[in-house]
């Protein structure tokens, strides 16, 4: 949007051009300067708002990195938690196991669901399915955790376990993958589908060999976002995964598993310096992991966009 440069002729819509510099000029000029002042105030407020977004990001990240590095010790990566001290090896390993498990479940269910909504669902019939998925993403995470505890852990006798954690976290992040898959598939030109149908391919085959290919970067990005969120979740895990000082086992049921958000939430207000150290380091690791994934997703998008620089969207 272009601002009128200073010194532009005054906007006069007067039906009497001969009076343009007559009696009303002073009033009009005063009004014009007041309008310009309001405009400047407006843009100043917008700039302040931008700073209001940037400052907390920098503050949070700097604070986490600062306190995390201050308490950093390499043994954190190699030793297990003992009480409120020791290292975080068990939590790091547990988080990786949980995230990989969630990625597998959500990668199957979410992508398949997105494919149905984009490809097979009759026009105008997917509203309920799509809405259900989107609204599920608005359910508070602690409610998911609570229900997971009451049903899976207690009623189904799974105990604190990897299985309960995976189910609850997958339910929580599956809408992201469904949405990403559907949006990516819808942006694939219809000509691809028509072309493969004209060649006589069954639609399942065409989907796999023709339509899914160009949509893949978007789908992978959605999956990565889902994994980043799974890394950072606490409330759904507290009462489903439990906590364990030991490394993850191969048992799906009845074996609590450690994860990185637990030390942050549980240790930050314990009266021990070792607990505070672990909380700070765990927060640093969490932020690094989550941001790493988001950056990877960004890179995928940027690279594929550069490869297919064909459209000429203005923004």
């Amino acid at each position, binding site marked *: 949007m272009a601002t009128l440069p200073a010194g532009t002729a005054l906007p006069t819509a007067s039906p009497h051009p001969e009076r343009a510099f007559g009696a009303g000029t002073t009033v009009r000029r005063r009004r014009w300067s007041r309008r310009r002042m309001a405009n400047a105030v407006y843009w100043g407020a917008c700039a302040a708002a931008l700073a209001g977004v940037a400052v907390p990001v920098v503050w949070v990240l700097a604070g986490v990195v600062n306190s995390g590095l201050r308490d950093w010790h390499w043994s954190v990566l190699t030793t297990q938690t003992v009480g409120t001290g020791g290292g975080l090896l068990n939590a790091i390993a547990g988080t990786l196991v949980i995230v990989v498990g969630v990625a597998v479940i959500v990668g199957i269910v979410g992508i398949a*669901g997105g494919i149905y909504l984009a490809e097979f669902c009759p026009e105008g019939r997917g509203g309920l399915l799509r809405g259900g998925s989107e609204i599920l993403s608005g359910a508070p995470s602690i409610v998911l955790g609570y229900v997971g505890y*009451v049903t899976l852990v207690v009623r189904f006798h799974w105990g604190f376990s990897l299985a309960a954690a995976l189910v609850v976290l997958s339910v929580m992040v599956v809408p992201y993958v469904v949405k990403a898959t559907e949006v990516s598939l819808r942006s694939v030109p219809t000509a691809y589908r028509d072309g493969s149908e004209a060649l006589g391919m069954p639609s*399942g085959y065409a989907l796999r060999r023709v339509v899914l290919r160009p949509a893949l970067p978007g789908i992978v990005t959605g999956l990565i976002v889902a994994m980043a969120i799974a890394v950072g979740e606490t409330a759904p895990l507290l009462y489903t995964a439990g906590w364990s000082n030991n490394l993850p086992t191969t048992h799906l049921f009845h074996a609590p598993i450690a994860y990185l958000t637990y030390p942050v939430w549980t240790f930050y207000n314990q009266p021990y310096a070792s607990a505070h150290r672990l909380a700070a380091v765990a927060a640093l690791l969490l932020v690094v992991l989550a941001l790493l994934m988001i950056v990877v997703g960004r890179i995928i998008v940027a690279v594929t966009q550069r490869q297919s620089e064909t459209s000429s969207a203005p923004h």
Partner: protein
Amino acid sequence: MTVPVESPGRPVPPAPGGQGPPGPRWDAAPGVIRPRHDTEGMVRWGTRLAALLPGAALVGLTVALLIEALPAIQGNGFGFFTRTTWDPGNFYNPPVVVNGVTRPDGASYGAFPLIVGTLASSAIAMAIAVPVAFGTAMIVVHKLPRRLSNTFGMLLEMLAGIPSVVFGLWAALTLGPFLAHHVSPFISRSLPDVPVLRYFKGPVGSGEGLLTSGLVLAVMVVPIIASTTRDLLRQVPRGTQEGAVALGMTDLEVVRTVSIPWVRTGVIGACVLGLGRALGETMAVAMASGTVLGTVPRNVYSTFGSMAGVIVSQLDSALTDATGFAVETLAYLGLVLLAMSLLANIGARLLVRRASTTALPVGRGI
């Protein structure tokens, strides 16, 4: 839709669904790469099942919570919404039966302070986040060069990607003490004692409380509103804006007369969506609020308890109630919370689906 065309010398592919004209199999023709299995039906049904799962999970979740909460709904009644006590009762006395539900002697639960705390912290968050997000989107779309605006998009994604427990840690250890030492005393001293501003006066506490929670919630909600507003602002027709400029309008006037009417519905939808997220946010508020029970916050510095924060911090001790009444009461609380955030979510999406060009983001707005 495949229209079978008769072409001499070449077998006709069947229409999807396999009701093609009889003849030699289409894939028996020379030069046709044949997929090993025709998996179409399987794919269709498999994906349909997968698409059903999220909605089914939502329904299952609600039903499970409702079943768990039923005894508490019966036992606590609707007084649950107006009482201010939070007393698990005496676990050592024999349990009593009230309203047909077994509960520890003297147990009395009321969610009024928690509902007030949740609504108040979310209201503070929205009051800050909405103008900040709107102004930010404005300047990013209209003033920043393309490269910087991409960087800003990344900033928003990072903001949405920072785990909420990390925000909680930051609020509890950094933001809260900073406010309590350097900001709140000044505000508390300097504001006049008039109706609304009265809530900003009084003892400033230790930094855990409504203001800290509201601020950290605002930071967490901004990505949802800002990213939606940015996408909407980019779709405002350029010609109309330029026409308004040609009429001699200043940028502010163009925004007021052209941009805002164009994006209004979508932005309102995004705000409601953000509100839903603020209401349901758990960890950050649990760590920044002080999570106290049984008292209604008196000013913006008061410690309080939010519904989500109380569920996460009280479930452990609720499990010690042998009658199960405490756990069921938390389910009741969770049901109220779920209803509030789902209503916000559904409302936002209905609003936007009717009258906007940009779909609302899912979840955290990445």
